[in-house]
């Protein structure tokens, strides 16, 4: 009986030895998965200047004058307004009420007001040309020189 028991224990030990390495060798405790990442970069609503408002050369000594740059003039400022492709984009335009322009090299100024705008559609729906005109006020004794200034146009997509 003792001999049988000894054989029995040895048999169980052998089984245990067989069983233990199995999971350690063949079983994996991690797994992988893949997923895609996607994103679309689409065109936004933007406004870009394509031409400055340029009044031109004026003679001095002509007295006080208001020089108009009407929408039909080639001197108007031009902007490209681009919406999201594929559809009309309603938007509003905000213009300054007045600005001052300054003589380069010294402090003399002129006032520009009467800003006005007009919008035309260039291609179906999404690209517009925004034209901006204004009125320049020249003093009677305005000093000769080069006058420049900046104005901001804000377009707001509705």
């Amino acid at each position, binding site marked *: 009986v003792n001999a049988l028991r000894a054989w029995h224990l040895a048999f169980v030990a052998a089984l245990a030895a067989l069983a233990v390495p199995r999971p350690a060798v063949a079983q994996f*405790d*991690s797994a*992988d998965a893949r997923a895609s990442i*996607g*994103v*679309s*970069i*689409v065109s*936004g609503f933007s406004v870009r200047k394509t031409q400055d408002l340029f009044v031109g050369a004026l003679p001095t000594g002509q007295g006080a004058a208001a020089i108009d740059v009407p929408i039909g003039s080639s001197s108007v400022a031009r902007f490209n307004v681009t919406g999201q492709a594929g559809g009309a984009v309603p938007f509003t335009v905000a213009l300054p009420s007045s600005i001052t322009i300054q003589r380069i090299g010294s402090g003399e100024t002129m006032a520009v007001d009467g800003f006005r705008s007009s919008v035309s559609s260039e291609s179906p729906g999404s690209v517009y040309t925004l034209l901006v005109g204004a009125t320049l006020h020249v003093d009677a004794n305005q000093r000769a020189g080069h006058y420049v200034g900046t104005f901001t146009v804000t377009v707001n997509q509705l």
Partner: protein
Amino acid sequence: MNDLWKAASRIPVGAGAFFLSAACVAQTCGGSSSIAIARTADLNFGSLIATASAGTAVIDPATGGRTVTGGVVAAGGAFAPAGFDVLLCGSGGIKRFDVVLPSSAITLTGSGGGTMTVDTFTQNPANHINGSTTVPTPFTVGATLHIAASQTQGTYSGVFSVTVARQ
């Protein structure tokens, strides 16, 4: 002899139990793995507008929400975190697992040329996650997308991998 029979009979029962549990979860538990994972959703940042300044878009894995920073403008589209289901296989061991996310940036390639990177992957819930051998346990993954100034328009795509490790 009685003892021997008892010992011998225990082995087939144990083996039977093992194979039975493997068969129960055979849908996703394959072969010799103690854990299985399946993707349920891809990571999507939706539609974004690039402007003159760079920025980021972040998908929150907990809320599924999207936030943008810098010059990036959110423009709708279907955005969502990635989703995965995890099933633990076999009845033994502690029933929880950890998620290992990409540690380096993933590059997305655009249909119109150009690339973007995605990094700072985040997960919900946090490690360790309690799992189950019967019901798949979901977790979600978000990340941060970097959009350059005036990023080329187009549809961008890439692939990332996650690893789940049983604890």
